[in-house]
């Protein structure tokens, strides 16, 4: 079972690489914001699968709950920047 979770982790890592292309290369700022939000969702799953590989899931569930609750504060703070200025 451990090797199956390990291969799922590596596959998720390659999907994160695909999202990272849009973070690095995105012509506008909003592209980067949405791509970072998508990476945050994949990070959650990756953390729980690491917990399964180590054998103690209950410790890693706490970290995942923090990310699930607080993931959107960064996006909110960045859009506040555009509010009065337009897309400059």
């Amino acid at each position, binding site marked *: 079972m451990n090797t199956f979770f390990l291969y799922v982790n590596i596959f998720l890592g390659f999907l994160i690489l695909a999202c990272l292309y849009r973070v690095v290369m995105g012509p506008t700022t909003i592209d980067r914001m949405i791509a970072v939000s998508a990476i945050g969702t994949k990070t959650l799953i990756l953390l729980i699968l690491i917990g399964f590989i180590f054998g103690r899931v209950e410790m890693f569930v706490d970290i995942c*709950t923090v990310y699930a609750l607080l993931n959107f504060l960064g996006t909110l703070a960045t859009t*506040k920047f555009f509010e*009065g200025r337009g897309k400059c």
Partner: protein
Amino acid sequence: MLTTVYENLIVQTVCRIMVPFIQIYALYVIAHGHYSPGGGFQGGVILTASLALIFLAFGQGAVTRRINRRLAVILASAGVFIYAGIGLLCLLLGGNFLDYAQLAKILGVTIPRARSLGILGVEVGVGLAVMAAMYSIILDIAGSPAKPETKSRPISENKP
């Protein structure tokens, strides 16, 4: 610019739903610091995140009405006072600084229970101090300054 009110119905409704859950989760992290990852500092930062969410969604006036700058300074000092107070209490009762076993004399419980209660008290103090300090840092960097007090000048001052 971060102080303008973000007059969007979706953001304000989501903020109203999420803030109680974030605060209860922060209290859970503080209380279970000895067993699962977390503790005083992490719980304090999550409490600050809940206040920052109100600050972003409703503006600086709404969050200042709940905890103003003076109350933040008082809370930070109260957190440090709880931490140092528990340490000094153990010192006065005849042990070392932060030697929780001495608390069993005034609380009347067994020694392992006194140690557990001492650790819980110290974590609460740390969480309170961290929340107030980070909240005041956010208000200083990302908020508009408080109105400076104007010195009163005499009316009859005429320039020649």
